[in-house]
């Protein structure tokens, strides 16, 4: 297996149901198989209610599948306890949400360093340098000590991207990352994604409604009624 072909994520027959055992039991995902390798830049599209967010939550280890197995960096995750899952999630997955989701009480820099601080406590010089470097990369070197409410929407989203990348994750998950931004800012954010994808070799999986965004990705997965459809 070549360096670039390294598997990051593999889903085997993943099913997810809600309200199990009740009259309202519904299966949202009907057996998903997919594979993401290093440096992939993938869009996940699909109509509302097709299960995109559910799938993303499963991949992000925020939720567990009803059946099937999800391998992250080769490790089966279904039977993991909370601490192990959390550690794996913290180390290998970065999240960017539609709404920036920064912690208001912390500065931009502290928000960026949060995943590292959660895992290792007080940040060392190396972490601080890395945080500064990332904030510079996203063009916010002047806003390091600003609180989120002092930043514009686009700036906040860029802080969130820097935060998602601070742990050098193998996989970055973005849920409608540009859904809340104007076209110009959205394009900037997308360009950033591209650059980090190339620079760090981090695999990107973008959930989006925006056809312009999905068209710019290397590959597109379409989810319809809980099934992946070949494009």
């Amino acid at each position, binding site marked *: 297996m070549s360096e670039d072909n390294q598997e990051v994520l593999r889903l085997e027959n993943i099913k997810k149901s809600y309200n199990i055992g009740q009259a309202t039991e519904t299966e949202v995902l009907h057996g998903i198989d997919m594979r993401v390798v290093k440096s992939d830049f993938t869009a996940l599209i699909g109509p509302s209610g097709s299960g995109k967010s559910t799938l993303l*939550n499963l991949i*992000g280890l*925020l*939720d567990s599948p009803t059946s099937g197995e999800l391998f992250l960096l080769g490790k089966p995750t279904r039977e993991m306890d*909370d*601490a192990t899952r*959390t*550690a794996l*999630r*913290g*180390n290998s997955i970065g*999240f960017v*949400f539609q709404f920036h*989701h*920064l*912690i*208001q*009480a*912390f500065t931009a820099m502290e928000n960026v360093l*949060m*995943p590292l*601080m*959660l*895992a290792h*406590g*007080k940040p060392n010089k190396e972490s601080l340098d890395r945080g500064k470097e990332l904030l510079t990369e996203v063009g916010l070197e002047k806003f390091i000590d600003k609180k989120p409410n002092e930043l514009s929407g686009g700036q906040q989203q860029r802080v969130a991207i820097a*935060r998602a990348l601070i*742990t050098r994750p193998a996989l970055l998950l973005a849920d409608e990352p540009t859904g809340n931004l104007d076209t110009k800012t959205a394009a900037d954010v997308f360009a950033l994604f591209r650059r980090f994808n190339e620079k760090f070799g981090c695999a990107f999986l973008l959930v989006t409604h925006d056809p312009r965004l999905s068209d710019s990705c290397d590959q597109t997965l379409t989810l319809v009624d809980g099934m992946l459809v070949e494009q």
Partner: protein
Amino acid sequence: MWIEWNIAVKFLREGRSQTALILVGIAVGVSVIVFITALITGLQANIIERTLGTQAHIKIQSPDELNRIVPAAIGTAQLILEDKRAQRLRSINNWQQVLTILDALSEVVAVSPVVSGPAFARRGESLESVALVGIDAPRYQKIIPISEDMVAGQFRVGAGNAVIGQLLADNLGLRVGDKLRLDAGFDGFSVVNIAGIFELGVRELDSRYVYLDLKQAQSLLNLPGGVTVIDVTVQDIFTADVAAARIGRLTGLKSESWMETNTQLMNALTSQSLSTSMISVFVALSVAFGIASVLSVSVVQRTREIGILRAMGTTQQQMLLVFLIQGALYGLAGSLVGGMAGYALVWTFNNLGPGLFYIPVANTLVPIAMTIATLTGVLAAAVPARRAARLDPVVAIRYV
């Protein structure tokens, strides 16, 4: 712990007005507890000091004399009509040995043999009934430091000297240096020289006590070489009953602690302590509920942030800790302010209040209150913290 601490502190600082309000609430509660505890402790110490300042912690006397009943012959019934015996003034048997035993006990601070009995004091035409108290002055001073309460003359007994109370002196028109005739109802009487006048502030003592040398009292009361009472003080006044029981077992004598002779006072003290504890417990409870409710609201307000933190790798354990720390900080900071306010209240009472008595504040009171408040904060935070830790990150992130 560093990051949990940091998040907790930042959360508290962000919710400034909420934090300020609950801190005031905690501070008020803690200051009430501190003040009322200091007040009641001070009051009790004052009452005990006043009561025990003029009496021994334990009094040891001969056991009461009982009629010895001849047992009925086997096969016969016996009807008994018994008159209680009159208790004559008697000396404690082998009191010197008893003294040696008592001196050796670790919990005993001072032991003083006393011979005491009734007498008449006469000066000219006036007659007063008095209590003769024959003492070994140095030993007795360790029980009741009378020399501190002298209003005239010196505390000096022996060589025909006596010391009497202020009221008795007034009634008989006596001054230091005057003579007083004492008659205990046995053959003969003594004339003593008034060497000093004391005022203990207890009517009974000030109007009746006549302190004499042990020997002189013994001869007046016709008990040569005897003592009727042994006074004892112990280290911890609140274990006087235990010490009294032990002494009773060791010596076979009647041994009574101040607690038995002042049952009413003990009842009052106990119920005071109980009501103080009740007030403290209920105030602490309401403080705890206050902390719990503020943190519960905070968990709801921060649901989304909790979700994000969880998504970024915060473990349930860490999330729990973040909120427990907040509870602890509420308790600590609130009790720090409350402790100071309590001190201020006590100071005001001592310096500007009615001046009935002085409230001492034990050095340990505020630290103890702070420790308890901090622990209460942690306990109160337990429920909201558990809820925060168990929030499903998927749901929490989408929470608006």
